C-alpha cells in the first residue's frame, strides 16, 4: 500500500498553510462580561475556536460535604457543544473532557485566592461552541477573564497557549489541521507576572532542544495573550465606567 503523499502544512518560506509565520498567534477576539446570569463571563475567538466561559461563585457548596474548611472548592467543567466539531459529539462527557476539566481546574488553583472564601465553591463552566485546535488553552484564557469579571481576587491572570512541531519546525498556536498532521503539541498555561507554569502537557515527540524551544515559544505566546487579556478587561472596565457615567447623567 503506497503512503499517501502529505501536502506540507508549512512551506519552504516558513509560511504556514493559513498564512501565519512560525511564531504568530491566530487572530484573537476577547469579550468580557457577555452573559446575563453568570457572576463572571468571557468569550474568546481564537482562529475558528469559539468558546464561552462562565463563573458562578463564591457560593454555598452543594452537596455540603464537599465544602472545604479552609478554602473555596474550585470546580471546572470543560464541555463541547455537539455541533462544535466535524462529526456530532455526544453531549455526555468523554474521557478527554474529564481529563481536560481536571487539568484546567488545576491550572487555575495557583491563581485564585481560594483561602479568602472557605466552605464555598467557585464553579467554572466552559462551553466550546466551535473547536479548531487548542481549545484547552483558549478556554483557560477566557475562563481567567471570567474569574476576574466575577470579581474573584486573583494572584495573576492565567494565559495559555500551545507551541508544537509541524513539518520539522517549531510553531506557535497550532490549529486543528496542524495539531492532527504535526509532530508535537505542547499546551502551556502561565501566570506572566509570577513566572509560574500552571498547565503543561504534551503529545508527540521532541528532542531535548526542540522541547526547550517549544516551551520558550509557548511562553512568548502566553505573554502576548496576557496583553490581550488586560486590554479586554480594560475595555470592559472603561465600558462599565462609561455606563456608570451615563447612569449618572440620567440621574
Amino acid at each position, binding site marked *: 500500500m503506497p503512503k499517501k503523499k502529505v501536502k506540507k502544512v508549512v512551506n519552504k518560506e516558513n509560511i504556514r498553510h493559513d498564512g501565519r509565520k512560525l511564531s504568530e498567534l491566530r487572530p484573537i477576539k476577547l469579550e468580557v462580561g457577555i452573559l446575563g*446570569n453568570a457572576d463572571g463571563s468571557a468569550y474568546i475567538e481564537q482562529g475558528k475556536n469559539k468558546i464561552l466561559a*462562565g463563573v458562578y461563585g463564591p457560593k454555598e457548596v452543594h452537596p455540603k460535604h464537599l465544602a472545604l474548611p479552609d478554602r473555596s472548592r474550585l470546580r471546572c467543567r470543560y464541555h463541547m457543544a455537539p455541533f462544535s466539531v466535524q462529526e456530532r459529539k455526544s453531549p455526555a462527557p468523554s474521557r478527554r473532557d474529564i481529563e481536560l476539566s481536571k487539568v484546567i481546574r488545576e491550572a487555575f488553583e495557583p491563581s485564585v485566592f481560594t483561602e479568602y472564601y472557605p466552605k464555598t465553591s467557585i464553579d467554572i463552566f466552559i462551553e466550546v461552541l466551535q473547536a479548531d485546535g487548542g481549545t484547552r488553552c483558549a478556554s483557560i484564557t477566557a475562563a481567567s477573564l471570567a474569574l476576574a469579571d466575577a470579581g474573584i481576587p486573583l494572584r495573576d491572570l492565567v494565559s495559555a497557549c500551545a507551541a508544537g512541531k509541524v513539518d520539522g519546525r517549531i510553531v506557535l498556536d497550532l490549529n486543528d489541521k496542524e495539531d492532527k498532521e504535526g509532530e508535537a503539541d505542547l499546551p502551556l498555561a502561565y501566570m506572566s507576572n509570577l513566572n509560574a507554569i500552571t498547565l503543561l502537557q504534551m503529545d508527540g515527540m521532541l528532542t531535548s532542544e526542540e522541547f526547550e524551544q517549544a516551551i520558550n515559544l509557548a511562553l512568548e505566546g502566553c505573554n502576548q495573550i496576557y496583553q490581550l487579556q488586560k486590554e479586554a478587561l480594560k475595555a470592559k472596565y472603561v465600558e462599565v465606567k462609561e455606563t456608570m457615567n451615563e447612569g449618572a447623567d440620567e440621574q
Partner: protein
Amino acid sequence: MTSPVVARMKQKRMADLISLGKRLDERGLTDYREAQIEIGVIEKAEGSARVRLGKTEVLVGIKIGLGEPFSDVPNQGVLTVNAELVPLASPTFEPGPPGEDAIELARVVDRGIRESKAIDLEKLCITPGKKVFIVFIDLYVLNYDGNLIDASALAALAALLNTKVFNYEVKEGEVQIKPGYKSLPIRNYPIAVTFAKINDKLVVDPCLEEEQVMETRLTMTIEKDEKVCALQKSGKGYFRIQQILEAAKIARQKAAELRKLVVKK
C-alpha cells in the same frame, strides 16, 4: 440577589400590574421582547442560528449525519432534537444528563417541526430501509431569562433554513461524499408562542421573573397556514377553555409576526 421579602413585594407588584394590563418591563400583555437573530454563527455546523429574546439566549446547531431509518418509515430521514441547559446559562441549571425540563423543551420543539412536516424527510432518504440522512438539532441554552421554548423553536427554524446538506453518490452500496451542498428541503415554518397565566390573565413571552410567579404556561405552535400543530400545557395550574381559545387567536397573530423575522430574510 434580592431578599425574599423584596422578591415577594416585587412579585405582588408584577401580578397587580398584569391585572391592569401592564408589565414590569412596560411591555403590553401580548408583546414579545426584542428578538435578535443571527444565522450561520457556527461555520463547522451544517446549520446554525443564535436567537436573543430579551436576555434569553439560545444557540442552535445542526449537524447532518448518516444512519439507518426507523423500520416503520424506511424511506424517511431521521430527525432528532436534543436540548441542553448548560450550567453557565443559569445558577439553577446543573451539569449532567438532561432533566425533565430539558427533555420537555426538546420534545416540544421537535413536535412543532415534526407535526408541521417542516422538513421533507422523504427527500433525506438515500437507500430505502438502509441509509438515510439524520438531522441532529441541538438546542443550546446560553442564558436563561424565561421563555426558552419560543426562543429555541425560533432558533431551530432559523438554523434549519440555513442548513446545507452535502452532495453524495452511492457507489457499490457505499455513500460517497461529493463536493458541494444543497439546502435542506424545508416546506413549513412552525412558530411557538408561549403564554403564561398570571393572576388569571395571559401574557406572551414571559421573562424569568414572570415565570417564577406564573400559575401555569401554554405553548401553541402555529404553522404557515395558521393551523395549530403542537400544544403543551406545562406547570402546576390550569386553564379555562375560554383562555385557551383566546390564546389560539393571539398565537396566530404573534406567530405571523415572528415568522417574518426568519423566513425570507
